[in-house]
């Protein structure tokens, strides 16, 4: 009997690496997904299309990022909003409004508010880069082509979601979709990634579609182009002074 158990254990231990391939670092995998458009530093042109029940519009934006905690984006089109900028440094988000030449800091109570009228919240800008700190990860499903990773918030993390589920393609290690569940575990939002292309030596999904599930007619589509990585951007570049000077 004992020998049998030992035998089973041996087989199980032997098979383990085979079942999981090389040890899979889920945390690292998710982190890679969250910073896929960033690298150490990045510059990109982004076209954003937002459709809601009441209006539709498209914006042309230019964005820069440095490491995971600094991010700057500026509206190029439409002309009425040209120059409106968002600066994210660590956990804080500022908006620069060229019309009145003022900088507004988004207060904590409004972090759940929409960013630039899209279906992305200010929180998404801040919390996306901290996902490996705020969540625990578990492999929920594995097929021949994908990993499905379930992320549950750590008890102490101040996050708005109840659960995130990432679907990541094995061959490319790129995300296909992310499902967002609220605190009652109801699926409320999904983000779908597609149009994978090789840019600056990296394979990236250049289109990201955000779908709020409670409003089927609404969506935000972001298209990245002219992505460049690992540019020499000084940290100063992401400062309030710079925001105003531009």
């Amino acid at each position: 009997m004992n020998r049998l158990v030992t035998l089973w254990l041996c087989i199980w231990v032997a098979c383990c690496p085979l079942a999981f391939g090389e040890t899979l670092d889920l945390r690292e995998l998710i982190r890679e997904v969250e910073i896929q458009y960033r690298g150490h530093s990045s510059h990109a042109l982004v076209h954003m299309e937002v459709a809601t029940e009441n209006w539709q519009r498209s914006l042309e934006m230019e964005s820069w990022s440095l490491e995971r905690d600094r991010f700057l984006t500026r509206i190029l089109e439409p002309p009425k909003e040209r120059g409106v900028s968002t600066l994210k440094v660590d956990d804080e988000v500022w908006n620069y409004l060229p019309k009145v030449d003022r900088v507004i800091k988004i207060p904590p109570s409004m972090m759940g508010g929409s960013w630039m009228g899209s279906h992305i919240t200010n929180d998404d800008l801040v919390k996306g880069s901290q996902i490996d700190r705020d969540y625990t990860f578990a492999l929920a499903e594995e097929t021949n082509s994908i990993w499905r990773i379930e992320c549950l918030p750590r008890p102490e993390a101040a996050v708005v979601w109840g659960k995130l589920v990432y679907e990541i393609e094995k061959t490319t290690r790129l995300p296909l979709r992310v499902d967002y569940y609220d605190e009652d575990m109801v699926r409320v939002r999904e983000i779908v990634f597609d149009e994978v292309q090789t840019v600056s030596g990296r394979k990236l999904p250049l289109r990201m579609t955000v779908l709020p599930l409670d409003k089927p007619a609404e969506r935000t589509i972001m298209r990245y182009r002219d992505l460049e990585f690992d540019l020499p951007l000084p940290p100063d570049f992401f400062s309030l002074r710079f925001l105003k000077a531009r």
Partner: protein
Amino acid sequence: MLVSLAFRNLWRNSRRTLLTLSAMVVSSSLLILALGVFSGMFADMLASATEQYYGHLVISARGYQDDRDMFADFSDYAALAGNLRKRPEVRGVSPRLRAFGLVAHADSTYPAELLGVQPAQEQQVTSFSRQLVAGRYLDETETAGALIGAGLAKKLGVQPGDELVFLTQAADGSIGNDLLTVTGIFETGSGNRDNALVLVNLPWLQKLTVLPDRIHELAITILEPMRAGELAAPLQTNLPAGLEVLTWGQLLPEMQEVIASYNVSRLILVAILYAATGLGILNTIFMSVMERTREFGILMAMGMKPRSVQNLVLLETLAMGVVSMTLGVAAGLAMTLYMERVGVDLSPYLSAVTYAGGTILPRLSAAFEADNVTIPAFALLLVSLAAGYFPARRAARLQPIEAIREE
């Protein structure tokens, strides 16, 4: 004859009569005053809830008041507002546009509700112009003026003359932002308003939110707020499709309940006080009837009918009731009116309390309400007659012979 007999009987023991009378007068006048003060408190509360924000009636797109959806707006309100103003019951009509967003000054940013109004019209509906703690009320000519709540002003650290940035999402999805200049600061005592409300000029907000010539609601004040429901029903039938009229009772259901429960507790208060007063009167009359047992025996022996004896005693109590009612009502009214004019300031001891959507101000004042006088007056008459009935019946049932023999 009975009447003059009754009055003479009352005067014969004038000290006792006067004591009873004074108890009746004091109890009824104080009751009238107490009810007046209660009414004053509730009128203050209702006024604070309605005249500090909502108005008595609000016309808006169906469902707007539930979620304040920016797109539930309407236009062509000028004719509707004009017709409403012509009605005799209506005191003021104010078209309003509402926007939620961020206000910022220097380094501080807070969420706020902006209410775009026409200053002169709004003044007839809400009391902001009378609740200024600094600066001036809004002025149409200062297009980008802002009247800001005291709490919000303190958080932002602004004074009249300072500049505010307002940021919101306009109706076309664009990022609406512009500068405002603080013209004045109001303080209502209600945290909801003082900490988050900013009044601005309607055209300024219409332009910022890209909602040209559109509004979210028409706020209406009427002369008699308690009759809002009666006015709402016929109004509703004449409204354009898609619009609805809501009364303050529907907007503030807790306030409606507070006032309904007040109406019940008012009756209970009257009942308790008059039960005590009634026992006092009963006591006095019983004593005077017992004292006069011999006298009644002689009257009946002389041929006075028991019925007349009963009426005689009832007349005495009725006379006392009428006299004390007159004096009590006069004194009660005088005190109520004094409290209405002058009032007692309690602000050194109490601060304002917000309850059921209304604010109880730290002052005692009274409000005249007809029910507060008629209910105590009629109750006093009824109680004195009821208190007189048992002694009167006892007097009428006396046997003349035994009564005369009694010591």
